[in-house]
């Protein structure tokens, strides 16, 4: 048998309600536990405020709010995923972040036509892995309305 050279995309997998989402590792700076958030007035509802991330003031986006999923109470598992995109550093509040996976690039399919939920605008594709379905986020669209 010859080992077939396959391209993989390394992603961070996180959970929102009952779905699993993925962000490329290259965009992720770190994962933090919830800490004190300072509310910033006159910002969209999904901007939860800013945190002190080791001396850098970093804004937080609540992804549930952004995707129109009913907001749950903060639980033990809630995490902040710090992502960077084009000079921007932003934290995503997610239900839990639990996996780092290598997705074969050929397992990624374009966004299905009918998803039927509010987050469809933010999806760049879906990846089918055995019995899991990972939704790949389009970071640009999540950050820029």
């Amino acid at each position, binding site marked *: 048998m010859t080992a077939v050279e396959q391209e993989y995309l390394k992603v961070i997998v996180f959970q929102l309600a009952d779905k699993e989402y993925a962000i490329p590792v290259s965009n992720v700076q770190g994962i933090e536990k919830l800490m*004190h958030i300072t*509310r910033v*007035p006159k910002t969209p509802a999904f901007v939860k405020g800013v945190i002190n991330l080791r*001396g*850098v*003031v970093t804004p937080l986006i609540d992804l549930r709010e952004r995707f129109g999923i009913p907001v749950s109470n903060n639980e033990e598992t809630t995490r902040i995923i710090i992502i960077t995109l084009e000079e921007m*550093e932003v934290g995503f509040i997610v239900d839990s972040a639990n996996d780092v996976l290598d997705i074969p690039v050929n397992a990624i399919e374009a966004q299905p036509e009918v998803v039927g939920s509010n987050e469809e605008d933010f999806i760049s594709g879906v990846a089918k892995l055995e019995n899991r379905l990972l939704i790949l986020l389009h970071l640009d669209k999540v950050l820029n309305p």
Partner: protein
Amino acid sequence: MELNQYLEMFIEESKEHLQSCSDNLLELEKNPNDLAIVNEIFRSAHTLKGMSATMGYEDLADLTHKMENVLDAIRNEKIHVDAEILDVVFESVDHLEEMVMNIADGGDGKKDVSQTVAKLKRIESGESIQQESAPSETAASEAAATTTALDNALQLEYDDFEKTVLLQSTEQGFNAFEISVTLNDGCLLKAARVYMVFDILEKNGDVVKSSPTVDKLEEEQFDQDFKVALISQTDAEELRSKIMKVSEVDNVAITQISKDLFVQSALGESEASVESAVDEGPIAAQVEVKKEETNQKTASAKHAASKTIRVSIERLDILMNLFEELVIDRGRLQSIATEVNHSELNETVERMSRTMGDLQNIVLTMRMIPIETVFNRFPKMVRTLSRDLKKKINLEIIGAETELDRTVIDEIGDPLVHLIRNSVDHGIESPEVRRANGKPEEGNVTLRAYHSGNYVFIEIEDDGAGINRERVLKKAISKGIVTKESALSLSDKQINELILASGFSTAEVISDISGRGVGLDVVKTTIESLGGNISIESTEGVGSIFSIQLPLTLSIISVMLVEIELEIYAIPLSSIIETSIIKNSDILNAHNQKVIDFRGKVVPLIFLDEIFNVPRSENDADEYHSVVIVRKGDKLAGLVVDTFIGQQEIVLKSLGNYLTNIFAISGATILGNGKVALIVDCNALMK
């Protein structure tokens, strides 16, 4: 050879030399007969040529060389300085600047300058710039010059100017030496050795003359030895040992130039010319005084140079960042100490805070740069503008040594360009109009900078037409910036400041210099974003003063921390006038606006909890309110908060690139407990 490590130094020094070239050129324009200035320019150009040739930037070296030739001709009084020639020299300096900027941006410094070169050549050969050159003659004269130069080899002969310089300097206690240096027979890099010797000599004094000429020395057109005349304060023995340190130097012979040599001839000549030169006397004296001054200047500059070191800005930024971290930790320590309330801990924290205060002053002043770095591009700009607009303008700069934090310096350049362009374009009238109004033809623009308290003030004053308030009002009303009714209640100053509003432009004809109506409101926004403000004073027919007030630094500021419910906000101390506690009964209502009577003034109240939508847990109508009275220009407002926490030094942090333009929030800071507090932008709260 690895040149990269020198590149940065090369760029820095080239910029300095080019700056000094343009400064001196402007000076020369005012005193076209002052050959000392030509010498200064020549020296800068010469060093630049040497450096760029070493670094391999041929075009740069070539153009400088051509320029140098012209300067040399001026210096030797072969050409008379006039505006035409200066224009071409200015043009070359502009090209040189572009090349250096290109190199700084990672380019190869190449540029097609053949036109300018051709012009320089024509000037050099003594032709009018418009005419085509006659190369044969030039070649002949050049050839002649070479032969005479060869005849003079190894024998220093001084012309009158050099004699005077030598005489003057010996009279002032300098030593005048004739130094002859012999290089090793096997010396391979003669030019390099010459360069090193000259470097030593120039550090120790001024080279008056060399034989063969510096050009020939650089092109290695000499055998093994050369002679140099030097004015120096160093003694002969020390000079000798310094030069001997250069490798491949075989022998150095230093002889003091006897005073008689040039005294006699100089005296003889001056005697001969005394009668004829009576009228020229004062001028000559002036030139000499100038020379003396420059000598002293270079001497003091050298003195200062030995006491400073160059530190890269990057390192200072790192130092600043580390210090900011310390400031945050200090805040934390202070809050812990208050909680623990241990006397020794308190004492230590207090002492540490004091030391940190001193340290902060030093760190901040280290990052201060004289505003000169911004100002020095203006003389040339004004010159070009006034030529384009056919106006006569004299720019005076006062207080260029005033220091400002680098963060402010970086931002202030463009607004000042706008303001100066505005003064030159709209302020100063054309010479005809000025004459008709009984003013001198030449308009004055004064750029002034000075410190006052924790602020730096920059003023741009012109003696031009001033602001026509009626026209401004009419325009503002027609553009919908103010209503007719409100226009009546505006003070003169407020009317003046209408020209800073966006969408305002009074110039009937839109020129590309200023007047697209975007300039001045951008200026206002930039200055306000720097925590400063701008005001205008103007008298019609007499002139205007634009006055900018800027904070000394932007990175560490003093704030008053206030609490609203559970949230903490910081209000910059610079906009606070005072704090007070008011009773419910003090609050009055005027047109749906709650106001208070504050020392006889009606001050509107701004409830921060409403502005910032602070979630209220319960509605306990307190009878007392804490109010921070803040100021913007001459307007006051009272910010209503829950409690005052106290005054603190904080480090200004940005909210990042994601959250931009948030209403009434100018930034954030990290408090002693590690939480983020937002900084209130008082300017945005008062429109």
